[in-house]
């Protein structure tokens, strides 16, 4: 992607993004790295309170399950950093899960490619409408959210689609590679690639420049529309991959799943300290955000297991919401301090 952007444009983008990097105060540091501190504290809490919390089984199944959200959150982070939003990722994942489940008797590669391809197609539609017709990303992706859900239901005939267990398709979600879950490998790769792309490529700089000031970025000759298009394409393709993992991990394509995933991903990005107005952000903090939200549910399970309290699964969303509230309030306060400190 980065090769397609003219070199001088890349330098301009760098020059534009550089002041953002220089102006970091301690408030900024706290706002962006606070999530890491919270994550470490939560892990220490869990490790001291529960047996087997850091056991291989718990850690690996936590990673296996949350990799889907991780993939979606990486794509969402890029979109949000351009100042956009992608509400369609959840139902896009559901659509991809149905398509890959339908094709699962044909082996591994075809359903994988078809699922990711379907996601990429939805992402392309988002990107094209947003950049060509200049309609708000919020509305466009709301519409593809509806359309993808409708298509998923149509393809699936209103019920979940069982996958083939003989073709090796289930390995994508359930298998291990070098003792590590395959979905977690995919998630890790996405985060590493995303981090490199954001920090060391002209594409990443342009993403930040667009979010900082789209008009200025355009006037500087940066390929604003192409980069925005690519972020939605990326978000869609990653959502498609998450959908393939969903089908493979749970043995069924699920047309009604994925509702609310987009909000989970947005929450993870926000908890990670990225502002929804764009222009800044970090892939590492987004990873921390995903793990933090996943850990809350995990700890709830352990707490129930101890028998001290008995909280139903419904508490999960309440606790997540309260958590998001605290983070958002803290960030509002820190952003204000940062502003007062002149950075």
């Amino acid at each position, binding site marked *: 992607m980065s090769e397609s952007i003219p070199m001088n444009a890349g330098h301009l983008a760098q020059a534009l993004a550089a002041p953002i990097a220089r102006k970091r105060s301690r408030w900024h540091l706290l706002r962006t790295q606070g999530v890491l501190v919270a994550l470490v504290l939560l892990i220490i809490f869990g490790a001291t309170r529960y047996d087997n919390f850091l056991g291989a089984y718990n850690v690996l199944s936590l990673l296996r399950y949350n990799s889907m959200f991780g993939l979606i959150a990486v794509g969402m982070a890029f979109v949000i950093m351009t100042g956009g939003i992608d509400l369609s990722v959840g139902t896009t994942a559901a659509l991809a899960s149905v398509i890959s489940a339908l094709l699962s008797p044909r082996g591994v590669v075809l359903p994988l490619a078809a699922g990711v391809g379907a996601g990429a197609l939805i992402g392309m539609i988002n990107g094209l409408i947003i950049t060509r017709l200049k*309609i708000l990303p919020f509305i466009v992706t709301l*519409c593809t959210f*509806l*359309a993808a859900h*409708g298509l998923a239901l149509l393809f699936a005939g209103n019920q979940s689609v069982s996958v083939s267990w003989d073709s090796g398709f289930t390995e994508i979600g359930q298998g291990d590679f070098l003792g590590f879950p395959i979905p977690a490998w995919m998630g890790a790769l996405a985060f590493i690639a995303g981090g490199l792309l954001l920090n060391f490529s002209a594409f990443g700089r342009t993403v930040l420049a667009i979010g900082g000031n789209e008009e200025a970025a355009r006037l500087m000759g940066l390929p604003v529309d192409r980069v925005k298009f690519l972020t939605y394409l990326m978000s869609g393709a990653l959502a498609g991959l998450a959908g393939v993992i969903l089908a493979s991990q749970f043995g069924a394509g699920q047309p009604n799943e994925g509702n609310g995933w987009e909000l989970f991903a947005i929450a993870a990005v926000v908890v990670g300290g990225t502002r929804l107005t764009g222009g800044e952000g970090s892939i590492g903090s987004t990873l921390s955000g995903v793990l933090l939200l996943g850990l809350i549910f995990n700890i709830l399970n352990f707490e129930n297991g101890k028998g001290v309290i008995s909280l139903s699964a419904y508490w999960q969303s309440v606790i997540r919401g309260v958590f998001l509230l605290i983070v958002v309030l803290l960030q509002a306060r820190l952003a204000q301090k940062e502003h007062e400190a002149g950075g």
Partner: protein
Amino acid sequence: MTLTLKTPGPRSLPKWAKVPSGALLGLVLLLLFNLCFTDHFLSLQTLNINMTQVSTIVIVAVGMTMVIATGGIDLSVGSLMAISGALAPLIFGARTGLLAIPAIGMIVAIVLPILAASVGGVLNGTLVARFRIQPIVATLILFIAGRGVAQVLTNGNLQTFSHAGFRWLGLGKVLGIPFQVLLMLAIVLVAAWVMRSTLFGRYILATGGNERAARLAGIPVQRVKLAVYVICGALSGLAGLLVIAINSSADANLIGLGIELDAIAAVAVGGTLLTGGRARIVGTLVGALIIQLVRYTLLAHGVPDAAALVVKAGIILVAVYLQKREN
């Protein structure tokens, strides 16, 4: 200041009842199509079914129109509906003390859930107005937590009940017209009047049009924003009561699920600017009717509900695109 606010400017204070011509044309075409090709379309029963189904969406969408007119958005409406809908059966199921008296039990079972939903609106409004948190994120919190609260209240179980007063809320008729349809029309009229003829309505438009200018003009921007979220919360609470009254049962997992999308769609199709500064309450009613009629038409002709979703998506996009070109 009051004087300048009451003098309508050329763009900022438009005619309250104006509906986008595209939306009206769409509604007329849909009606004509159904008159020609759908059996039994021109019957009181068909009218009642469609109007009843659309009324909860319209009630929520009226609140949403006001929020959007200030430049905000409220994703939590469905969850607030669930809280209110889950709370009511718990109250009239209690039958202790004063609640055992039917009239008092009924009033408390209506007032308390709506109050609870309004408290949700207070939280949304405070986050947006005082803490300056982006509306999407601020209302995302209750979108996630609100349904959880409703599920925790009922332990996720379906509550069925038989309560004459509540059944009337859902199924009762006045002069042959379903009560909730009358309620919906009354809310639309009051909201349209508020937007057209009250200072508060003008404040809403001014806040959404140019918040900085509104602040400098001495408009209590924070209080206006807080108020619209509280109104939106209260209307969602009312809609939640209507939904459970129709079914004589409350399922916290399902009440109001996905209604935020229908409401936003109705607002967008109705010609309210999604960036704020322009509100079309009657347009919202027309928008909701279009979305409802499309679904009805497709269903009546054997097209599955799933395909209706795709069509709905297309309609919203076209409506917003036309609205954009108009400006």
